[in-house]
Protein backbone atom coordinates (compact mmCIF):
# COMPACT_ATOMS: atom_id res chain seq x y z
CA UNK A 1 0.00 0.00 0.00
CA UNK A 2 1.34 3.42 -0.89
CA UNK A 3 2.07 5.69 2.02
CA UNK A 4 -0.44 8.51 2.27
CA UNK A 5 1.21 11.87 2.80
CA UNK A 6 0.06 13.36 6.08
CA UNK A 7 -0.94 17.03 6.04
CA UNK A 8 0.62 19.81 8.12
CA UNK A 9 4.22 18.66 8.59
CA UNK A 10 6.22 20.26 11.42
CA UNK A 11 7.32 23.80 10.62
CA UNK A 12 6.19 27.43 10.77
CA UNK A 13 2.51 28.38 10.72
CA UNK A 14 0.55 31.47 11.64
CA UNK A 15 -1.72 29.44 13.91
CA UNK A 16 -1.57 25.88 15.25
CA UNK A 17 -4.85 24.34 16.41
CA UNK A 18 -4.59 21.31 18.70
CA UNK A 19 -7.59 18.98 18.91
CA UNK A 20 -10.04 17.52 16.40
CA UNK A 21 -13.27 17.61 18.38
CA UNK A 22 -16.04 20.08 17.57
CA UNK A 23 -14.02 23.03 18.95
CA UNK A 24 -10.91 22.27 16.89
CA UNK A 25 -12.80 21.46 13.68
CA UNK A 26 -14.94 24.59 13.94
CA UNK A 27 -11.91 26.80 14.59
CA UNK A 28 -10.00 25.27 11.68
CA UNK A 29 -13.01 25.73 9.39
CA UNK A 30 -13.28 29.45 10.17
CA UNK A 31 -9.51 30.06 10.07
CA UNK A 32 -9.63 28.61 6.56
CA UNK A 33 -12.56 30.92 5.71
CA UNK A 34 -10.47 33.88 6.87
CA UNK A 35 -7.47 32.65 4.87
CA UNK A 36 -5.23 32.07 7.89
CA UNK A 37 -2.41 29.60 7.33
CA UNK A 38 -2.72 27.06 10.08
CA UNK A 39 -2.09 23.45 11.08
CA UNK A 40 -4.68 21.23 12.77
CA UNK A 41 -3.10 18.56 14.97
CA UNK A 42 -4.75 15.69 16.79
CA UNK A 43 -3.46 12.75 18.80
CA UNK A 44 -6.57 10.80 17.71
CA UNK A 45 -7.07 8.90 14.47
CA UNK A 46 -10.32 10.62 13.50
CA UNK A 47 -12.59 13.52 14.55
CA UNK A 48 -14.46 13.63 17.85
CA UNK A 49 -12.20 11.50 20.04
CA UNK A 50 -14.12 12.25 23.23
CA UNK A 51 -17.27 10.82 21.68
CA UNK A 52 -15.40 7.52 21.20
CA UNK A 53 -13.56 7.39 24.54
CA UNK A 54 -16.41 8.36 26.86
CA UNK A 55 -19.26 6.09 25.92
CA UNK A 56 -20.94 7.00 29.21
CA UNK A 57 -22.27 10.08 27.39
CA UNK A 58 -24.93 8.19 25.49
CA UNK A 59 -26.99 11.25 24.72
CA UNK A 60 -26.29 14.95 24.45
CA UNK A 61 -28.15 17.49 26.56
CA UNK A 62 -28.56 20.17 23.89
CA UNK A 63 -31.48 20.07 21.47
CA UNK A 64 -31.62 19.55 17.73
CA UNK A 65 -35.12 19.84 16.25
CA UNK A 66 -35.18 18.13 12.85
CA UNK A 67 -38.33 20.04 11.90
CA UNK A 68 -38.64 23.76 12.48
CA UNK A 69 -40.59 26.71 11.14
CA UNK A 70 -37.46 27.91 9.29
CA UNK A 71 -35.33 26.29 6.57
CA UNK A 72 -32.46 24.06 7.72
CA UNK A 73 -30.07 26.04 5.57
CA UNK A 74 -31.00 29.35 7.23
CA UNK A 75 -29.03 31.10 9.93
CA UNK A 76 -32.17 31.20 12.08
CA UNK A 77 -32.29 27.37 12.07
CA UNK A 78 -29.12 27.28 14.18
CA UNK A 79 -31.29 28.21 17.18
CA UNK A 80 -33.27 25.00 16.56
CA UNK A 81 -30.13 22.91 16.08
CA UNK A 82 -27.56 23.25 18.84
CA UNK A 83 -25.30 20.42 17.77
CA UNK A 84 -24.30 20.95 14.14
CA UNK A 85 -21.15 22.85 13.37
CA UNK A 86 -21.48 26.15 11.49
CA UNK A 87 -20.66 26.65 7.84
CA UNK A 88 -21.24 29.15 5.06
CA UNK A 89 -21.94 26.48 2.41
CA UNK A 90 -25.54 25.17 2.42
CA UNK A 91 -24.35 21.56 1.94
CA UNK A 92 -22.29 21.74 5.15
CA UNK A 93 -24.97 23.25 7.34
CA UNK A 94 -27.18 21.39 9.82
CA UNK A 95 -25.63 17.94 9.34
CA UNK A 96 -26.76 16.46 12.67
CA UNK A 97 -30.59 16.52 12.22
CA UNK A 98 -30.38 14.37 9.09
CA UNK A 99 -28.56 11.68 11.10
CA UNK A 100 -31.04 11.53 14.01
CA UNK A 101 -33.53 8.72 14.56
CA UNK A 102 -35.85 11.17 16.38
CA UNK A 103 -36.17 9.03 19.51
CA UNK A 104 -35.46 12.33 21.33
CA UNK A 105 -34.80 15.87 20.21
CA UNK A 106 -31.33 15.39 21.77
CA UNK A 107 -28.89 13.51 19.52
CA UNK A 108 -27.28 10.32 20.76
CA UNK A 109 -23.53 10.07 21.18
CA UNK A 110 -23.27 8.05 17.94
CA UNK A 111 -25.36 10.55 15.98
CA UNK A 112 -23.19 13.40 17.23
CA UNK A 113 -19.98 11.59 16.32
CA UNK A 114 -21.35 10.81 12.84
CA UNK A 115 -22.23 14.50 12.42
CA UNK A 116 -18.68 15.58 13.29
CA UNK A 117 -17.11 13.03 10.92
CA UNK A 118 -19.50 14.09 8.14
CA UNK A 119 -18.59 17.75 8.67
CA UNK A 120 -14.83 17.12 8.57
CA UNK A 121 -15.22 14.88 5.53
CA UNK A 122 -17.55 17.05 3.45
CA UNK A 123 -15.75 20.29 4.35
CA UNK A 124 -12.47 18.63 3.40
CA UNK A 125 -10.97 19.65 6.75
CA UNK A 126 -7.57 18.08 7.00
CA UNK A 127 -5.87 17.27 10.27
CA UNK A 128 -2.59 15.67 11.14
CA UNK A 129 -3.98 12.73 13.07
CA UNK A 130 -1.80 10.64 15.37
CA UNK A 131 0.25 13.71 16.30
CA UNK A 132 0.47 14.33 20.05
CA UNK A 133 1.26 17.75 21.54
CA UNK A 134 3.94 17.15 24.17
CA UNK A 135 5.34 20.45 25.41
CA UNK A 136 5.38 24.18 24.84
CA UNK A 137 7.84 27.07 24.98
CA UNK A 138 8.29 30.61 23.75
CA UNK A 139 11.00 31.68 21.33
CA UNK A 140 10.73 35.45 21.41
CA UNK A 141 7.09 36.16 20.67
CA UNK A 142 6.58 32.90 18.82
CA UNK A 143 5.24 29.78 20.41
CA UNK A 144 6.90 26.42 19.84
CA UNK A 145 4.82 23.28 20.26
CA UNK A 146 6.83 20.10 20.51
CA UNK A 147 4.88 17.12 19.26
CA UNK A 148 5.43 13.44 18.64
CA UNK A 149 6.11 14.41 14.99
CA UNK A 150 8.43 17.35 15.62
CA UNK A 151 8.30 21.09 16.33
CA UNK A 152 5.59 23.53 15.25
CA UNK A 153 6.30 27.27 15.43
CA UNK A 154 3.41 29.70 15.39
CA UNK A 155 2.25 33.20 16.24
CA UNK A 156 -0.82 31.88 18.05
CA UNK A 157 -1.81 28.46 19.32
CA UNK A 158 -5.42 27.42 19.85
CA UNK A 159 -5.96 24.52 22.25
CA UNK A 160 -9.27 22.74 21.70
CA UNK A 161 -8.83 19.65 23.84
CA UNK A 162 -12.09 19.61 25.74
CA UNK A 163 -12.53 19.38 29.49
CA UNK A 164 -12.31 15.63 29.69
CA UNK A 165 -9.48 14.73 32.04
CA UNK A 166 -10.83 13.23 35.29
CA UNK A 167 -10.26 15.60 38.20
CA UNK A 168 -10.18 14.63 41.87
CA UNK A 169 -10.70 17.07 44.71
CA UNK A 170 -7.92 17.23 47.31
CA UNK A 171 -9.58 14.99 49.87
CA UNK A 172 -7.34 12.68 51.96
CA UNK A 173 -8.01 9.11 50.85
CA UNK A 174 -9.90 9.96 47.67
CA UNK A 175 -7.40 7.74 45.88
CA UNK A 176 -9.48 4.82 47.21
CA UNK A 177 -12.35 6.02 45.03
CA UNK A 178 -13.05 5.10 41.43
CA UNK A 179 -13.56 8.13 39.20
CA UNK A 180 -16.90 8.66 37.47
CA UNK A 181 -15.32 7.80 34.10
CA UNK A 182 -14.47 4.31 35.35
CA UNK A 183 -18.01 3.42 36.42
CA UNK A 184 -19.44 1.93 33.27
CA UNK A 185 -21.41 -1.16 34.25
CA UNK A 186 -24.12 -0.38 36.84
CA UNK A 187 -24.58 -4.13 37.59
CA UNK A 188 -21.25 -4.24 39.41
CA UNK A 189 -22.84 -2.16 42.20
CA UNK A 190 -25.44 -4.85 42.90
CA UNK A 191 -26.09 -5.08 46.65
CA UNK A 192 -23.36 -2.58 47.52
CA UNK A 193 -23.32 0.56 49.65
CA UNK A 194 -22.00 3.45 47.57
CA UNK A 195 -20.88 6.95 48.50
CA UNK A 196 -20.75 9.40 45.58
CA UNK A 197 -18.54 12.46 46.16
CA UNK A 198 -20.10 15.28 44.16
CA UNK A 199 -23.59 16.60 43.51
CA UNK A 200 -23.25 18.12 40.06
CA UNK A 201 -23.94 16.58 36.64
CA UNK A 202 -21.72 13.51 36.88
CA UNK A 203 -22.63 12.72 40.51
CA UNK A 204 -26.34 12.62 39.81
CA UNK A 205 -25.88 10.86 36.51
CA UNK A 206 -23.96 7.99 38.07
CA UNK A 207 -26.37 7.85 41.04
CA UNK A 208 -29.33 7.56 38.72
CA UNK A 209 -27.56 4.80 36.79
CA UNK A 210 -26.97 2.64 39.88
CA UNK A 211 -30.31 3.29 41.64
CA UNK A 212 -31.74 -0.09 40.49
CA UNK A 213 -28.61 -1.96 41.68
CA UNK A 214 -27.02 -0.44 44.76
CA UNK A 215 -28.17 -1.27 48.31
CA UNK A 216 -27.71 2.31 49.44
CA UNK A 217 -26.45 5.49 47.83
CA UNK A 218 -25.21 8.66 49.52
CA UNK A 219 -24.40 11.74 47.46
CA UNK A 220 -22.29 14.20 49.43
CA UNK A 221 -20.57 17.51 48.66
CA UNK A 222 -20.34 20.95 50.29
CA UNK A 223 -22.72 22.81 47.97
CA UNK A 224 -26.48 22.46 48.43
CA UNK A 225 -28.39 21.07 45.45
CA UNK A 226 -29.85 23.96 43.50
CA UNK A 227 -33.23 22.50 42.66
CA UNK A 228 -34.62 25.68 41.07
CA UNK A 229 -31.78 25.74 38.56
CA UNK A 230 -31.88 21.98 38.00
CA UNK A 231 -35.57 21.98 37.22
CA UNK A 232 -34.74 24.04 34.13
CA UNK A 233 -31.69 21.98 33.16
CA UNK A 234 -31.63 19.49 30.32
CA UNK A 235 -30.22 17.11 32.92
CA UNK A 236 -33.24 17.34 35.19
CA UNK A 237 -34.27 13.71 34.76
CA UNK A 238 -30.86 12.43 35.79
CA UNK A 239 -30.46 15.01 38.51
CA UNK A 240 -33.84 14.97 40.05
CA UNK A 241 -34.55 11.23 40.21
CA UNK A 242 -32.17 10.40 43.10
CA UNK A 243 -32.96 13.76 44.71
CA UNK A 244 -36.68 13.11 44.40
CA UNK A 245 -36.28 9.78 46.23
CA UNK A 246 -34.36 11.49 49.03
CA UNK A 247 -36.74 14.45 49.30
CA UNK A 248 -39.69 12.07 49.71
CA UNK A 249 -37.89 10.20 52.45
CA UNK A 250 -37.06 7.16 50.36
CA UNK A 251 -34.82 4.84 52.37
CA UNK A 252 -31.40 4.06 51.00
CA UNK A 253 -30.88 7.23 48.96
CA UNK A 254 -29.43 10.31 50.67
CA UNK A 255 -28.34 13.66 49.26
CA UNK A 256 -26.39 15.63 51.88
CA UNK A 257 -24.41 18.87 52.21
CA UNK A 258 -21.08 17.89 53.72
CA UNK A 259 -17.39 18.50 53.31
CA UNK A 260 -15.55 15.20 53.04
CA UNK A 261 -12.83 15.17 55.69
CA UNK A 262 -11.20 11.84 54.83
CA UNK A 263 -11.69 8.39 53.36
CA UNK A 264 -10.00 5.39 55.01
CA UNK A 265 -9.84 1.73 54.15
CA UNK A 266 -11.26 -0.50 56.93
CA UNK A 267 -10.74 -4.10 55.78
CA UNK A 268 -12.90 -4.62 52.70
CA UNK A 269 -14.91 -1.46 53.33
CA UNK A 270 -14.26 2.27 53.17
CA UNK A 271 -15.03 4.74 55.93
CA UNK A 272 -16.05 8.25 54.84
CA UNK A 273 -15.87 10.96 57.52
CA UNK A 274 -17.90 14.07 56.77
CA UNK A 275 -18.86 17.38 58.34
CA UNK A 276 -22.07 19.28 57.64
CA UNK A 277 -21.83 22.51 55.67
CA UNK A 278 -25.41 23.75 55.83
CA UNK A 279 -26.13 22.02 59.16
CA UNK A 280 -24.06 21.41 62.31
CA UNK A 281 -22.63 17.99 62.96
CA UNK A 282 -20.59 15.12 61.58
CA UNK A 283 -21.55 11.86 59.92
CA UNK A 284 -19.55 8.71 59.27
CA UNK A 285 -20.36 6.19 56.59
CA UNK A 286 -19.03 2.68 55.98
CA UNK A 287 -19.50 1.74 52.36
CA UNK A 288 -18.28 -0.75 49.76
CA UNK A 289 -17.46 1.83 47.10
CA UNK A 290 -16.67 5.51 46.85
CA UNK A 291 -17.11 7.15 43.47
CA UNK A 292 -15.37 10.48 42.83
CA UNK A 293 -17.78 12.49 40.71
CA UNK A 294 -15.68 15.58 41.23
CA UNK A 295 -15.62 16.65 37.62
CA UNK A 296 -13.11 17.15 34.86
CA UNK A 297 -10.29 19.43 33.88
CA UNK A 298 -8.86 20.72 30.65
CA UNK A 299 -5.69 18.81 29.66
CA UNK A 300 -3.21 21.66 30.02
CA UNK A 301 0.06 19.68 29.74
CA UNK A 302 2.98 21.95 30.66
CA UNK A 303 1.11 25.25 30.20
CA UNK A 304 0.74 25.84 33.99
CA UNK A 305 4.55 25.55 34.34
CA UNK A 306 4.86 28.12 31.55
CA UNK A 307 2.70 30.49 33.64
CA UNK A 308 -0.86 29.70 32.57
CA UNK A 309 -3.27 31.16 35.14
CA UNK A 310 -6.33 29.00 35.85
CA UNK A 311 -9.67 29.09 37.65
CA UNK A 312 -11.71 26.38 39.40
CA UNK A 313 -8.83 24.78 41.33
CA UNK A 314 -6.52 24.67 38.33
CA UNK A 315 -9.01 22.94 36.08
CA UNK A 316 -9.87 25.65 33.55
CA UNK A 317 -7.66 28.32 31.93
CA UNK A 318 -8.53 31.93 32.88
CA UNK A 319 -9.28 33.71 29.62
CA UNK A 320 -9.92 37.19 28.20
CA UNK A 321 -13.19 37.92 26.37
CA UNK A 322 -11.48 36.75 23.12
CA UNK A 323 -10.43 33.46 24.79
CA UNK A 324 -6.74 34.29 25.14
CA UNK A 325 -4.96 33.25 28.33
CA UNK A 326 -4.87 36.21 30.76
CA UNK A 327 -1.21 35.37 31.39
CA UNK A 328 0.26 33.71 28.26
CA UNK A 329 0.11 35.90 25.15
CA UNK A 330 -0.76 34.03 21.97
CA UNK A 331 -2.21 31.05 23.84
CA UNK A 332 -5.92 30.72 23.00
CA UNK A 333 -8.55 28.13 23.85
CA UNK A 334 -11.50 26.89 21.83
CA UNK A 335 -14.21 24.32 22.50
CA UNK A 336 -15.32 23.48 26.02
CA UNK A 337 -12.27 25.14 27.65
CA UNK A 338 -13.47 28.49 26.26
CA UNK A 339 -15.72 28.51 29.36
CA UNK A 340 -12.67 30.08 31.06
CA UNK A 341 -13.96 33.41 29.66
CA UNK A 342 -17.00 34.15 31.80
CA UNK A 343 -18.03 37.38 30.14
CA UNK A 344 -19.49 40.33 32.00
CA UNK A 345 -21.46 37.90 34.18
CA UNK A 346 -24.51 40.09 34.72
CA UNK A 347 -26.61 38.68 37.58
CA UNK A 348 -24.07 35.89 37.80
CA UNK A 349 -24.91 34.50 34.36
CA UNK A 350 -22.05 32.76 32.57
CA UNK A 351 -21.56 32.14 28.86
CA UNK A 352 -22.88 28.99 27.15
CA UNK A 353 -19.38 27.94 26.21
CA UNK A 354 -19.42 24.44 27.67
CA UNK A 355 -21.37 22.94 24.79
CA UNK A 356 -21.18 22.96 21.01
CA UNK A 357 -24.06 25.41 20.62
CA UNK A 358 -22.09 28.19 22.33
CA UNK A 359 -18.49 27.43 21.46
CA UNK A 360 -19.15 27.09 17.73
CA UNK A 361 -19.85 30.86 17.77
CA UNK A 362 -16.81 31.51 19.93
CA UNK A 363 -14.75 29.75 17.24
CA UNK A 364 -16.04 32.05 14.50
CA UNK A 365 -15.43 35.19 16.57
CA UNK A 366 -11.98 33.89 17.58
CA UNK A 367 -10.98 33.18 13.96
CA UNK A 368 -12.04 36.71 12.98
CA UNK A 369 -10.11 38.13 15.93
CA UNK A 370 -6.97 36.17 14.98
CA UNK A 371 -7.32 37.25 11.33
CA UNK A 372 -7.47 40.87 12.43
CA UNK A 373 -4.60 40.53 14.87
CA UNK A 374 -2.23 38.51 12.68
CA UNK A 375 -3.04 40.07 9.32
CA UNK A 376 -4.15 43.49 10.45
CA UNK A 377 -6.94 43.12 7.92
CA UNK A 378 -10.63 43.36 8.65
CA UNK A 379 -13.17 41.66 6.46
CA UNK A 380 -15.36 44.17 4.59
CA UNK A 381 -18.32 45.49 6.58
CA UNK A 382 -21.81 45.62 5.12
CA UNK A 383 -23.93 48.76 5.34
CA UNK A 384 -27.17 48.55 7.33
CA UNK A 385 -30.02 50.25 5.46
CA UNK A 386 -32.74 50.05 8.09
CA UNK A 387 -31.19 50.21 11.54
CA UNK A 388 -34.34 49.57 13.59
CA UNK A 389 -35.43 46.54 11.52
CA UNK A 390 -31.90 45.14 11.64
CA UNK A 391 -31.67 45.44 15.43
CA UNK A 392 -35.16 43.99 15.98
CA UNK A 393 -34.40 41.04 13.71
CA UNK A 394 -31.19 40.33 15.60
CA UNK A 395 -32.95 40.59 18.96
CA UNK A 396 -35.69 38.22 17.81
CA UNK A 397 -33.80 35.53 15.96
CA UNK A 398 -30.00 35.91 15.94
CA UNK A 399 -28.82 32.45 17.09
CA UNK A 400 -25.49 33.86 18.33
CA UNK A 401 -27.29 36.19 20.75
CA UNK A 402 -29.91 33.66 21.84
CA UNK A 403 -27.32 30.95 22.54
CA UNK A 404 -24.57 33.12 24.01
CA UNK A 405 -26.89 35.25 26.14
CA UNK A 406 -25.10 38.21 27.67
CA UNK A 407 -21.78 37.08 26.16
CA UNK A 408 -21.96 37.84 22.44
CA UNK A 409 -23.60 40.90 20.91
CA UNK A 410 -24.25 42.26 17.41
CA UNK A 411 -22.72 45.67 16.82
CA UNK A 412 -23.77 48.36 14.35
CA UNK A 413 -21.63 51.50 14.12
CA UNK A 414 -22.94 54.91 13.16
CA UNK A 415 -21.14 57.66 11.29
CA UNK A 416 -22.46 60.59 9.23
CA UNK A 417 -26.01 59.30 9.34
CA UNK A 418 -25.17 55.88 7.90
CA UNK A 419 -24.82 52.56 9.68
CA UNK A 420 -22.40 49.66 9.27
CA UNK A 421 -22.70 46.07 10.52
CA UNK A 422 -19.63 45.41 12.69
CA UNK A 423 -20.56 41.77 13.25
CA UNK A 424 -20.70 39.66 16.40
CA UNK A 425 -18.22 40.37 19.22
CA UNK A 426 -17.98 39.63 22.95
CA UNK A 427 -20.16 42.13 24.82
CA UNK A 428 -17.29 42.92 27.22
CA UNK A 429 -15.16 44.00 24.28
CA UNK A 430 -17.90 46.36 23.05
CA UNK A 431 -18.52 47.84 26.51
CA UNK A 432 -14.87 48.29 27.44
CA UNK A 433 -13.24 49.40 24.20
CA UNK A 434 -13.31 52.97 23.02
CA UNK A 435 -14.91 53.34 19.63
CA UNK A 436 -17.24 55.32 17.42
CA UNK A 437 -20.90 55.83 18.20
CA UNK A 438 -22.52 52.41 17.95
CA UNK A 439 -25.34 50.11 19.02
CA UNK A 440 -24.98 46.62 20.46
CA UNK A 441 -27.84 44.13 20.57
CA UNK A 442 -27.69 41.48 23.26
CA UNK A 443 -30.13 38.95 24.72
CA UNK A 444 -30.00 38.73 28.50
CA UNK A 445 -31.87 37.36 31.48
CA UNK A 446 -33.38 39.69 34.10
CA UNK A 447 -33.64 39.34 37.89
CA UNK A 448 -36.82 37.28 37.59
CA UNK A 449 -35.20 34.85 35.14
CA UNK A 450 -37.06 36.26 32.13
CA UNK A 451 -35.32 36.66 28.79
CA UNK A 452 -34.99 40.35 27.95
CA UNK A 453 -33.40 41.76 24.80
CA UNK A 454 -31.06 44.59 25.68
CA UNK A 455 -29.67 47.42 23.56
CA UNK A 456 -26.50 49.27 24.44
CA UNK A 457 -25.98 52.69 22.91
CA UNK A 458 -22.49 54.23 22.80
CA UNK A 459 -22.50 57.98 22.17
CA UNK A 460 -19.48 60.19 22.65
CA UNK A 461 -17.75 57.34 24.51
CA UNK A 462 -20.55 56.86 27.09
CA UNK A 463 -22.55 53.64 27.04
CA UNK A 464 -26.22 53.49 28.09
CA UNK A 465 -28.27 50.35 28.55
CA UNK A 466 -31.90 49.89 27.47
CA UNK A 467 -33.88 46.77 28.34
CA UNK A 468 -36.83 45.86 26.16
CA UNK A 469 -39.97 44.44 27.66
CA UNK A 470 -40.21 40.65 27.78
CA UNK A 471 -42.54 39.10 25.17
CA UNK A 472 -44.18 35.75 26.03
CA UNK A 473 -43.45 34.34 22.54
CA UNK A 474 -40.03 36.00 22.29
CA UNK A 475 -41.17 38.07 19.30
CA UNK A 476 -39.43 41.41 19.33
CA UNK A 477 -40.27 42.60 15.82
CA UNK A 478 -43.78 43.97 16.50
CA UNK A 479 -44.92 47.58 16.59
CA UNK A 480 -44.41 48.39 20.29
CA UNK A 481 -40.78 47.20 20.05
CA UNK A 482 -40.26 49.10 16.78
CA UNK A 483 -41.49 52.23 18.52
CA UNK A 484 -39.33 51.64 21.59
CA UNK A 485 -36.16 50.96 19.59
CA UNK A 486 -36.84 53.90 17.23
CA UNK A 487 -37.02 56.10 20.30
CA UNK A 488 -33.74 54.69 21.64
CA UNK A 489 -31.74 55.16 18.44
CA UNK A 490 -33.13 58.56 17.43
Amino acid sequence: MAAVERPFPPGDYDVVVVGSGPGGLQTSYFLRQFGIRHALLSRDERPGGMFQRYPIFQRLITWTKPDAPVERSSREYEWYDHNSLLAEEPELKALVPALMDRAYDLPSRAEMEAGLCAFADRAGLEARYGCTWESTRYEGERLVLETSDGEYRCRAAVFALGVTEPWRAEVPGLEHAAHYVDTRDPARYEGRDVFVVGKRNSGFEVAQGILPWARSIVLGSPRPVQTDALALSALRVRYLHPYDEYARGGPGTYVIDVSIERIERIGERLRVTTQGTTWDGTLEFEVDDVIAATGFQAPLQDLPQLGLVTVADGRIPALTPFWESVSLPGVFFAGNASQGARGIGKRGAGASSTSVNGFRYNARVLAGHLAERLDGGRPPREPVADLVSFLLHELTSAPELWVQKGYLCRVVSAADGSHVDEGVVPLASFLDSPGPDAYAASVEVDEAGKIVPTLYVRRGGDVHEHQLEHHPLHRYDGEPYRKHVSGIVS
Partner: protein
Amino acid sequence: MSIAETLAQLALFADLTPSQLEAIAHSHEEDVFAAGERVLRRGLSGGNFYVILEGEASVELDGESRAKLARGDFFGEVSALTGEPPTTDVVAVTMLRCLVIPAPQLEQLLLDRPQLMLRMLRMEARRLRSTLEWQP
Protein backbone atom coordinates in the same frame (compact mmCIF):
# COMPACT_ATOMS: atom_id res chain seq x y z
CA MET B 1 -4.30 26.89 47.63
CA SER B 2 -8.02 26.14 47.39
CA ILE B 3 -10.61 28.94 47.38
CA ALA B 4 -11.86 27.86 50.81
CA GLU B 5 -8.31 28.06 52.23
CA THR B 6 -7.88 31.53 50.72
CA LEU B 7 -11.20 32.70 52.16
CA ALA B 8 -10.11 31.43 55.60
CA GLN B 9 -7.29 34.00 55.57
CA LEU B 10 -9.56 36.98 54.85
CA ALA B 11 -10.99 39.13 57.65
CA LEU B 12 -14.47 39.14 56.11
CA PHE B 13 -14.77 35.37 56.56
CA ALA B 14 -12.86 35.09 59.87
CA ASP B 15 -15.85 33.81 61.90
CA LEU B 16 -16.84 30.97 59.58
CA THR B 17 -15.87 27.32 60.05
CA PRO B 18 -13.85 25.46 57.39
CA SER B 19 -16.93 23.53 56.27
CA GLN B 20 -19.00 26.73 55.99
CA LEU B 21 -16.20 28.23 53.90
CA GLU B 22 -16.18 25.14 51.70
CA ALA B 23 -19.88 25.57 51.06
CA ILE B 24 -19.29 29.20 50.00
CA ALA B 25 -16.31 28.28 47.82
CA HIS B 26 -18.26 25.50 46.10
CA SER B 27 -21.40 27.58 45.63
CA HIS B 28 -19.80 30.48 43.76
CA GLU B 29 -17.47 30.90 40.82
CA GLU B 30 -14.12 32.59 40.84
CA ASP B 31 -13.09 34.80 37.99
CA VAL B 32 -9.69 36.10 36.92
CA PHE B 33 -9.22 39.40 35.11
CA ALA B 34 -6.14 40.54 33.18
CA ALA B 35 -4.57 43.86 34.19
CA GLY B 36 -6.64 46.65 32.65
CA GLU B 37 -9.88 44.66 32.35
CA ARG B 38 -13.02 46.24 33.75
CA VAL B 39 -14.78 44.22 36.45
CA LEU B 40 -17.60 46.53 37.59
CA ARG B 41 -19.21 48.89 35.08
CA ARG B 42 -20.68 52.22 36.06
CA GLY B 43 -24.34 52.62 35.10
CA LEU B 44 -24.96 49.04 33.96
CA SER B 45 -27.50 46.80 35.67
CA GLY B 46 -26.91 43.35 37.09
CA GLY B 47 -23.53 43.88 38.78
CA ASN B 48 -22.26 41.22 41.19
CA PHE B 49 -20.51 41.31 44.57
CA TYR B 50 -16.78 40.61 44.34
CA VAL B 51 -14.23 39.60 46.98
CA ILE B 52 -10.60 40.02 45.95
CA LEU B 53 -8.65 36.79 46.48
CA GLU B 54 -5.47 37.96 44.77
CA GLY B 55 -4.26 41.11 43.02
CA GLU B 56 -5.19 44.80 43.02
CA ALA B 57 -8.03 46.84 41.59
CA SER B 58 -8.79 50.51 41.23
CA VAL B 59 -12.11 52.30 41.84
CA GLU B 60 -12.42 54.73 38.95
CA LEU B 61 -14.66 57.64 38.05
CA ASP B 62 -14.30 58.98 34.49
CA GLY B 63 -10.99 57.15 34.15
CA GLU B 64 -9.51 58.68 37.32
CA SER B 65 -8.54 56.42 40.18
CA ARG B 66 -10.36 57.27 43.42
CA ALA B 67 -9.31 54.34 45.59
CA LYS B 68 -7.24 51.19 45.49
CA LEU B 69 -8.49 47.75 46.50
CA ALA B 70 -6.40 44.72 47.42
CA ARG B 71 -6.66 41.12 48.66
CA GLY B 72 -9.45 40.77 51.19
CA ASP B 73 -11.30 43.89 50.01
CA PHE B 74 -14.71 43.60 48.44
CA PHE B 75 -16.70 45.72 46.01
CA GLY B 76 -20.05 45.81 44.23
CA GLU B 77 -21.97 45.43 47.51
CA VAL B 78 -23.78 48.77 47.25
CA SER B 79 -25.36 48.04 43.88
CA ALA B 80 -25.90 44.37 44.75
CA LEU B 81 -27.83 45.32 47.90
CA THR B 82 -29.73 48.34 46.54
CA GLY B 83 -30.41 46.99 43.05
CA GLU B 84 -29.12 50.26 41.58
CA PRO B 85 -26.35 50.26 38.96
CA PRO B 86 -22.83 50.96 40.26
CA THR B 87 -21.78 54.62 40.40
CA THR B 88 -18.11 53.89 39.64
CA ASP B 89 -16.02 51.50 37.56
CA VAL B 90 -13.71 48.96 39.12
CA VAL B 91 -10.73 48.04 36.96
CA ALA B 92 -8.08 45.37 37.51
CA VAL B 93 -4.68 47.02 38.13
CA THR B 94 -2.76 43.75 38.23
CA MET B 95 -4.05 40.32 37.39
CA LEU B 96 -7.08 40.08 39.65
CA ARG B 97 -8.67 36.95 41.09
CA CYS B 98 -12.09 37.35 42.67
CA LEU B 99 -14.85 35.30 44.20
CA VAL B 100 -18.05 36.34 42.43
CA ILE B 101 -21.37 36.33 44.32
CA PRO B 102 -24.45 37.43 42.35
CA ALA B 103 -26.78 39.86 44.16
CA PRO B 104 -29.63 37.47 45.09
CA GLN B 105 -27.16 34.93 46.50
CA LEU B 106 -25.38 37.67 48.47
CA GLU B 107 -28.60 38.57 50.23
CA GLN B 108 -29.24 34.92 51.13
CA LEU B 109 -25.65 34.38 52.25
CA LEU B 110 -25.78 37.39 54.59
CA LEU B 111 -29.06 36.17 56.09
CA ASP B 112 -27.64 32.66 56.53
CA ARG B 113 -24.36 33.87 58.04
CA PRO B 114 -25.01 36.87 60.31
CA GLN B 115 -21.36 36.88 61.46
CA LEU B 116 -20.39 37.60 57.86
CA MET B 117 -23.02 40.36 57.70
CA LEU B 118 -21.61 41.98 60.86
CA ARG B 119 -18.04 41.85 59.52
CA MET B 120 -19.19 43.42 56.28
CA LEU B 121 -21.15 46.12 58.11
CA ARG B 122 -18.08 47.01 60.21
CA MET B 123 -15.87 47.27 57.14
CA GLU B 124 -18.56 49.34 55.42
CA ALA B 125 -18.79 51.63 58.47
CA ARG B 126 -15.03 52.21 58.37
CA ARG B 127 -15.25 53.10 54.68
CA LEU B 128 -18.09 55.52 55.41
CA ARG B 129 -16.12 57.16 58.22
CA SER B 130 -13.07 57.69 56.05
CA THR B 131 -15.27 59.08 53.27
CA LEU B 132 -16.89 61.54 55.69
CA GLU B 133 -13.52 62.49 57.18
CA TRP B 134 -12.09 63.81 53.95
CA GLN B 135 -15.18 65.77 53.05
CA PRO B 136 -14.99 69.51 53.90
